[in-house]
Each structure stands twice: as structure tokens, then as C-alpha cells.
């Protein structure tokens, strides 16, 4: 006989951010059905809804579990939901101009909102099924968004690639879930501890071992780390700029949050970070760092360069999760969540500049096109330079704080060699971070260069995020 579980008022209090986002996305969808100036209303509803949701998250204190871990609201979910909403607001602002010029779908804002809802669900759950639901909600929205630049064939190609590969990754994840259910009899994270409290990684039976491996594969795909990183350059380059921005920041943050919870609860708590899982994660770290560093060196397209830089960052974040999952969860949460936040802010700054400067027909920016930007538009050059310097991890920017924390965590927990390799990869990566800076400042402006005027929202996003990159370097949050 089933008992009916009613939601208590406390449950509703914690659920409000997600509900608010759903409601605002639906309102955004409503107002996207017609042409005309209503897309502005769509954006406004989404933005207001996000701000309200942010405020609601701010007033959720402590940890609260609904239906025994099906939905879990704790500092991890609060921080990552905040990061996702910041990514949402930034990307929506960047896309407003493209929607206005009818280069993107009118439903763009609604889809962004739904994707954000899915992501918030991903980080707020301790159950694999709910994780999958969140994953799919966000993924399906993003598949549409990636292909929404209708005049560009590259966009459709990117969407198809992402859909097929992402579908395969989701299938891996679902298969892992079913194996997990077969092994533990439940899809909740807590089910694992009930059966294998003190087991060693090598003594784990085949069924749960494969379950975890398949689940890790799904996570690593979404995170964009080696060995499942190959979709990133093409998809990020083909997608419209604001969607790339959203994917680079929001999807990554959600994947990081979900993986962090998975890693700490299942792998870390039960000391399974050695053995095959440790090797997989270490391989992910190493591969991402080296591949992202080496392959980025030859790029002339700024979007592609940022795609490879994101692979390097995936390596760093994975090092933080891998290094810290065994540690007291407070420290690894601080390190990884602050990394995710600073990473989102840096990328929004870079993408804001790209969205202002990109030529509409290619939706991309070549390095040759930003030559001499410091003289023609010094504020854009400064924003982009700040973003690049921060991504390189130079003091005193947010990126440096993020990187040094991850490295310190790795070194403190015995992964000194990985940390050293991460630093070596950083040296390589800085070569391609310096290149745009050199082009902007040291080269003369090519003749006849003109840039689009009048993208105030993008400029605002760029300015605010660039300032925050510098300020967060000195007064970091969540550290």
C-alpha cells in the first residue's frame, strides 16, 4: 500500500527557486510565440525570474532533503545553482541582441530557462534517476539551442554532433544507472553505502564497478574532459555565441556540481578513489590538460581557442575533485565551487567581447580580426585581456585564485605529480592565451576594420564580469 508523501512548507521553501525558474521559462515561452518586440518581454521575464530565484536561493540555509535524497538542497546545490543562474543571466543578455536581429530563435530565452531548470535539478539531487531527468531536460534544450542559428550550416552540424554524441553519453549514463540499480537495489546515492561500507576499490564486484565506470563516462562527457572531449571544439565553434557561452559556463558548472556530489558521496566516502576509478580520473586529468594545452596552440579562431582552453580547465577542475574528494567535504566544496564561479565569470567576459566583435555571417572571431583592438576599442581589448590573463592563471585575478586552490588541494592530498603536470600544461596554455593579447595590443589595426555598434547589454555583461574577475582575485568569494 503506497503512502502518499505530501510536501511540507519547508519543502516548498527549498523548491521555490526551481519552481520560479520553471515559471519564468514558461512565461518566456509564452511571449516568444509572436514576433515583434515581445522577445524583449521574454528576456525580461527570464531575467526577473532568475533574480528572484537567486534571492530565494540566498535565503535557503542549511541542508534539506526531500523524499530521502531525491531532491537535496545543501550548500553544494545552492552554490552551483547560483553559478548556473549567473551563467543563465549572462548568456541571455548576450543573446538578446542576436534574437533582436532575428539571428536566433524567438524561443531562445525559454530554452535557456528550461536548460537552467534541468541543470539546477542535476546539482540538487542524490538520486541517479533525478540526475538523469535533469541531464536530459538541459541536454534537449541545449541541442535545440546549438542548432538554432538557422542561416549557418555549421550550427546544424554542431547540433547533430552534440545530439548524437550526447545521446550516446546519456545512454551510457542510463546504462550505468541500471547496473547501479541491479547492484544496490535503488537508484539513490545512499544505496551504495548501505551495501559496501568499507570495501576496497579492487574488491568491488564487477557489477557495481562497471556501474560506476559507466556513470563516470557520462559525467566526463558532460564535463568535456579527456577521453570524451572530442565533441567540444566542433560543437562550441558551430553553436551561436551566446549558446556557446551558456554551454561553457552553465553546462560545465552543472556537470561539475553533479560529479562533485557523486565523487564525494560514492567514491570519496567509501575510499574508492584508488584502483581503477583513480586511474580513470587521473587519466582524465592528464589527458585534458595535455590535449587542451597542445591542441590549442595552433588555433586562429578565438572560439575554438576558448574551446580548447575549456578542456584544460576541465582538467584542473577534475584535479580538484579527484584530489579533494577524500578530504573534508567543506574544503573541496569551497575549492571546486569557487573555481566554477570564477570560471563562469571569466568566460562570460571573453564571450561578451566575442559577441560584440564577431562577424554575423561566420558567428566567429579570427585572431587577425582583433589586431589593434587596443587602439580602436580599448574597453573591449581590456575586457578580453583581463579574461585571458585570468584564464592563464596570472595573479591577481580570479583565475589565479581558482587554479592555485586546486593545485594546493591536489598537492596536499598526494597528487603532487599531477599538480606539476598541470603547471606544465599551464605554461603551454599561456602561449595561446597571450596570443590574442599580443594581437590586440601590439599589432596595428588593419585597414577598413569596422565593428558593430550598439550592443549595450553585451557591453554591460563584459564590463561587469571583467571587473568581477579583477575584484574576485583580491576578495575571493567562497574561498
Amino acid at each position, binding site marked *: 500500500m503506497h503512502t502518499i508523501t505530501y510536501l511540507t512548507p519547508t519543502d516548498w521553501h527549498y523548491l521555490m527557486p526551481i519552481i520560479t525558474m520553471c515559471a519564468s521559462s514558461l512565461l518566456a515561452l509564452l511571449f516568444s510565440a509572436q514576433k515583434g518586440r515581445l522577445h524583449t518581454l521574454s528576456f525580461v521575464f527570464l531575467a526577473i525570474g532568475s533574480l528572484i530565484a537567486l534571492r530565494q536561493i540566498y535565503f535557503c540555509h542549511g541542508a534539506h532533503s526531500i523524499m530521502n535524497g531525491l531532491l537535496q538542497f545543501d550548500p553544494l546545490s545552492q552554490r552551483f545553482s547560483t553559478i548556473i543562474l549567473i551563467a543563465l543571466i549572462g548568456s541571455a543578455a548576450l543573446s538578446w541582441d542576436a534574437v533582436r536581429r532575428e539571428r536566433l530563435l524567438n524561443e531562445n530565452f525559454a530554452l535557456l530557462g528550461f536548460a537552467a531548470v534541468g541543470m539546477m535539478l542535476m546539482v540538487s539531487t542524490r538520486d541517479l534517476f533525478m540526475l538523469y531527468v535533469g541531464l536530459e531536460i538541459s541536454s534537449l534544450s541545449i541541442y535545440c539551442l546549438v542548432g538554432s542559428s538557422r542561416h549557418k550550416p555549421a550550427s546544424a552540424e554542431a547540433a547533430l554532433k552534440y545530439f548524437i554524441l550526447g545521446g550516446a553519453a546519456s545512454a551510457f549514463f542510463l546504462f550505468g544507472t541500471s547496473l547501479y540499480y541491479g547492484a544496490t537495489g535503488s537508484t539513490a546515492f545512499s544505496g551504495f553505502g548501505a551495501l559496501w561500507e568499507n570495501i576496497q576499490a579492487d574488491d568491488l564486484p564487477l557489477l557495481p564497478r562497471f556501474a560506476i565506470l559507466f556513470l563516470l563516462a557520462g559525467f566526463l562527457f558532460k564535463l568535456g574532459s579527456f577521453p570524451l572531449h572530442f565533441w567540444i571544439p566542433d560543437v562550441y565553434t558551430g553553436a551561436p555565441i551566446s549558446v556557446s557561452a551558456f554551454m561553457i559556463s552553465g553546462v560545465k558548472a552543472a556537470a561539475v556540481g553533479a560529479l562533485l556530489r557523486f565523487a564525494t558521496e560514492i567514491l570519496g566516502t567509501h575510499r574508492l578513489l584508488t584502483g581503477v576509478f583513480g586511474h580513470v580520473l587521473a587519466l582524465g586529468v592528464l589527458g585534458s590538460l595535455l590535449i587542451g594545452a597542445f591542441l590549442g596552440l595552433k588555433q586562429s579562431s578565438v572560439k575554438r581557442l576558448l574551446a580548447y582552453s575549456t578542456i584544460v580547465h576541465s582538467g584542473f577542475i577534475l584535479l580538484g575533485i579527484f584530489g579533494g574528494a577524500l578530504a573534508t567535504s567543506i574544503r573541496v566544496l*569551497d575549492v571546486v565551487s569557487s573555481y566554477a564561479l570564477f570560471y563562469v565569470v571569466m568566460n562570460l567576459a571573453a564571450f561578451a567581447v566575442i559577441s560584440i566583435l564577431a562577424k554575423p555571417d561566420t558567428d566567429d572571431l579570427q585572431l587577425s580580426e582583433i589586431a589593434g583592438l587596443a587602439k580602436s576599442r580599448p574597453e573591449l581589448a581590456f575586457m578580453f585581456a583581463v579574461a585571458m*590573463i585570468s584564464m592563464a592563471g596570472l595573479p591577481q585575478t580570479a583565475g589565479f585564485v581558482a587554479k592555485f586552490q586546486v593545485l594546493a588541494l591536489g*598537492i596536499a592530498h598526494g597528487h*603532487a605529480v599531477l599538480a606539476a603536470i598541470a603547471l606544465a600544461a599551464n605554461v603551454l596554455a599561456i602561449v595561446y592565451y597571450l596570443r590574442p593579447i*599580443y594581437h590586440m595590443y*601590439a599589432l596595428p589595426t588593419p585597414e577598413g576594420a569596422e565593428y558593430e555598434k550598439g550592443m549595450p547589454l553585451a557591453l554591460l555583461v563584459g564590463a561587469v564580469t571583467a571587473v568581477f574577475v579583477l575584484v574576485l582575485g583580491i576578495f575571493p568569494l567562497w574561498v
Partner: protein
Amino acid sequence: MDHLSAWIIFAPIFGALIVWFLPDALARHSHLVAAAISGFIACVGAFALCEFNPSVSDLQSVVDWPWLDSWGVHFYVGLDSENIGLVAMTLILTPLLFLCAPILQPRAEPSEIAMSCGFLLLMESGALGTFLSQDLFLFYVFWELILIPAYLMLGMYGTGERARSGLVFFLYTFVGSLAMLFSILYLMAAQTDLTGVPSSALSDLAEIRMNGKAEVWLFWAIGLAFFVKAPLFPFHGWLRGAYKDAPLMLTIYMAAIMSKMGAYGIGKVLLPLFPNAAMQYAPVLLWASAIGLVYGALLAYNQKDLKSLLACASLSHINALLMGLFSLKAMGHSAALFQMLSHGFLIFGLFLVCGVLQKRDESLAWENLGGLAKFLPMTAISFFVFSLGSMGLPGTNGFVGEFLILLASFDAAPWTGVIAAFGVVLSAAYMLRAYQLSMLGPVSAHGEISEQLGYSVKAIFIMLILFTIGFGIFPQTLLRVVGG
């Protein structure tokens, strides 16, 4: 007056912002504005410096603000006998550098000069922060701070192969810095393991005793950063390109101040934190710096223009003062600190002469200079005095430092002292050659040139001459304060 140390570190950053956003009316004189700002900072700093009591061995003018609490990082700065000379030198040289900007970069547009002055103010902040910092993490932050402004200045306003030189300089320095970051994080982790309380203050980190192998690795990792910056002999590959292709203002900064950051780091961080590894490897490093001294001298003799010659001369002199540090003798240490100051002012004067001679020929090649002493009397006298100081003629401050360093290295490893003495002879050779080729001899085909130095440049020349000779005759006044 309590937070003076912190104030003089941050003030140049605000100064840089002011210089960058000057209204158009003042933008033509941005170098004067920058000079005024840095001069003001120097005067304020002088208050703190005058209060300094050399007989007290504790830190003075201490500022200790918690910053990144969970990692134990504090904004912990203070003056002691090791850094006071360098802080004073940085504070004094920066306004002088700005005053000489029209001479040093005659063909630059006002906007370029404004950008350069802003960058140099940022770099001054980085240098002061490095010298004053007593917390290793904070040291690293300020150490890295100068990289991007230097790279941008080189790339934007340099000559020749500036892209390549800039990248080589950046990568060399960055590799060293990241090795240092690794060591710092490792030390912080070890410190947390040891005491349970995270901290990155130098005094706390010095208490850690680690096993031999780890100490050796960390020694070389942190050392790499300093050896590249100074630069010590095998790690000098970036120097010639960077000094030659950089705009003259940046070259002066790099030679006078940036190289001292590396040397200071060796004395302050490397040798105290890793005493066993230091004792083990100091002989090797002593030999490396001795070889560097001679190598730089031979290289300088073979250069075809004045700027490259001075760059190699600087390499030779820095290796000389590193010898003092690696001798692991107290006398050598004090001598090195003294020599850092004397070299800083001397090389400033020498490159200033370069700036004056630039009017004749931008590339400063020997065939275009010659017989200029007739036309540039004051410059010629100053050049001669600075050359004597570089050579280490008794009566100049160069001699005092050099002599003490020779004594210390004889004490540590006699043959290195012999080589160093040989290097001193070589320094006479190349400096006199430089003087002869540029100032004496037949006038080159370019003909006459008029000496139009402003009052400020003349005053600076006179001041530097007095400094060179004055501290040559009365070194005790400086030695008492510097190096304790």
C-alpha cells in the same frame, strides 16, 4: 603612519590608473604626472625609511592583514635590513625614470608614453610588493604581477624582434614562476601538516624540516624562478633579446630593479628556507655565477652596439653579486646587497647615457657613434664616471661591493675568486672599449650633435655621480643600514 608599507605598495597602482585616465590637457605631460605621483610616493616612503632602526633585527613598519584565511595567507609586509635598500632604490629610481622619459623615448607619442608610464607604475608596485613581502604567497603574487605589463610594454613599444623576445622572456620567467608556485603550495601543505594551522609566512615556513630529497627538489624548483629572473649563468637566454628589443625605459627597469628581485629572492627565500640543500649546492651555483661573470664580460666585449654591451655588462655584474650570495658568508651577503644598490644606480646612469646617445642613432651601433665627447661634455663625464664605477675602480661604490664579494668568494672557493678577479679585468676592458668607441676617437660621418639635456637630466647625472663617488669613499653609511 602605521600602514605605510602597504600604502607605498598600493599607491603606484592607483597612480597607474590616474596616468591612464588623464584628461587630454595633461596627457601631453603624462610622464611629469607620473613622476610627480611616484615622487610623492617616494617622499611618503621616505618617512617609513627614515624611521628604520638598523640595530634592531626585527621587522619594522609591519603590516599584517589576513587575506585568504582558509589558506593561511596574510598580507604581511615589513621592512628589514635586507629589503630597505632595495625599497629605497625602487622608490628613488622610478620618479627619475619618468623624468627622463623624453630623453629615453624621444619618438614616442604622448599616448604611448602615458601607457608606458602606467605600466611602469604597475611594475613598481610589483617590485615594492616583492621586496617588502614577508609572506611567501604574497611574494609570489607580486612577483608575477610584473610579467604582463613588462610583456605588453615589450610587445607594444619594442623594436626589432619584439614578438619573439617578448614571448621568450615571458615563457622563461613563467616556467620559473610556476615551479616556484609548486614549491610554495608544497611548503604550505607541509606547514599545515606540521602544525595544523595553515600559514604561508616566511618565518613559519622556515621552521619546516623536510626530508633531503624533497628539500633538494623544492630548492631547485624555487631556485629556478630566481635564477631565471636574476639571471644566473645558464638561464640567461632571454636576456639579450629582451634587453635589446625593449624600449629603453623598460630596459632600465629590467636591469635596475627586476634583476634585483631575483637576487633578493635568492637571499631572502631560497637560502634561508633550504639550508641543507643550500650548503650542498652553493658551490655549484658559485661556480655558475663565476662563469657567468666571465661569460657576460666576454660577450659584452664582442657586442656591436652600446645597448647590447650594457645588457651583457649587466649580466656580468649580476652574476658577480650572486657570487656574494652563494658564498654563504655574511660578508658576501652584505656585499651583495650593497652591490645591488650600486649596480642599480650605475646601470640606470649608463642606460641614461644610452638614451642621450640615441639622438645620434637609434641602434647605437659603434660605427655611428664616435668622438661624441666633444659635443656632449656632461654626458661624457657621466659616462666615464659610471664606467669607472662599473669596473670597480677604487673610490667608486662599485669597488666596495666588488672587493667584498671577491673576499667572500675567495673564502668559499678560492678558484672562483680568481675567476672573478679575471672578470673584473675584463669588465675594465669592455667598459673602456665602450667609452672609447662612443666618446673618443674620430667623429663619425653623422657629424655634429648638440647636447640638449633638460635640467632634470643634468641634475640626475650629477646626483648619480655624487652617489657613485660618495658611497665609494664613505661606504660605511650604506653598509651600516644595508645587510646589518
